[in-house]
């Protein structure tokens, strides 16, 4: 029975099966790896301003010494939508999605850091 089923698989089909399996494994590792962040920590002036889950889309206004920074959370991603800092580095960084990513607006002393279930090593943490 088994050999009978195998004779219908041509050499290229084995290649397809192999590629398909690799594709599924990579997808699973990428999507279930736990690297996607589920919480954003917003700091202002070095103190935690708010901790928000990424599951709800929202806009948060954070006051700083130069003015108000706007942080938007959408589709499990977070970014600094606007900021009064002169060079706009944190705004230009764009969307943060992975756990451990962080955007800093130093002039306005506002930062957003994403965390997941486990904290990944990076030089900011150690």
């Amino acid at each position, binding site marked *: 029975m088994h050999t009978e089923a195998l004779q219908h*698989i*041509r050499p*290229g089909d084995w*290649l397809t099966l192999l590629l398909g399996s690799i594709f599924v494994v990579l997808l699973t590792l990428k999507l279930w790896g736990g690297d996607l962040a589920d919480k954003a920590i917003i700091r202002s002036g070095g103190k935690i301003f708010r901790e928000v889950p990424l*599951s709800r889309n929202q806009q948060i206004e954070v006051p700083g010494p130069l003015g108000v920074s706007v942080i938007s959370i959408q*589709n499990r991603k977070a970014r600094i939508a606007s900021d009064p800092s002169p060079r706009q580095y944190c705004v230009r960084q764009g969307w943060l999605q992975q756990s451990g990513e962080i955007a800093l607006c130093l002039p306005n002393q506002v930062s957003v850091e994403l965390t997941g279930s486990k904290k990944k090593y990076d030089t900011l943490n150690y």
Partner: protein
Amino acid sequence: MTPSIIKLDTTAEDHHIARMAAVALGLTVLENAIPSPLPGVKPGLANIVTLIVLARYGWRVAAWVSLLRVLAGSLLFGNFLSPGFFLSLSGAMLSLLMLAFAQHLPKRWFGPVSHSIYAAFAHISGQMLVVYLWLIPHAGIAYLIPIFATAALLFGTVNGLIAARFMDNANALNSKPIENPI
């Protein structure tokens, strides 16, 4: 009152396509009787017919059979123009698109099993696209993708094997293509 008769001119090919689509429809009905652990994880037995038709009569006939099956199936189950119908349609259309390319793979090396696996992945991609762009526009559905991809690989392989085995049997019985395989 005189009875009016509307007569459509149909060719032998039309009848043939209709018969094949009816077989595919039968498999769809059969499949709906099988309980599924997760909505969307289905074996897609009707695609066996699409694969056989593709190998025997080419892509155009396969496209007719597949799309007719989606349309007639939706009328049968009463979900025409509902989200479920568009999920089937997007899956079928992307599968056909993929098969249009996959059918040109060298026949010596690639058989129905490859066609089936590629079509299954295309099918699930089409469905996830509709789910994400229209039904659930939330990145959270990404967590379900590995389940669907695993099911696509598994059922794609099984359907391909069934199609290959069926064609081998039919070829052994009869060297010329048979009119009505079931």
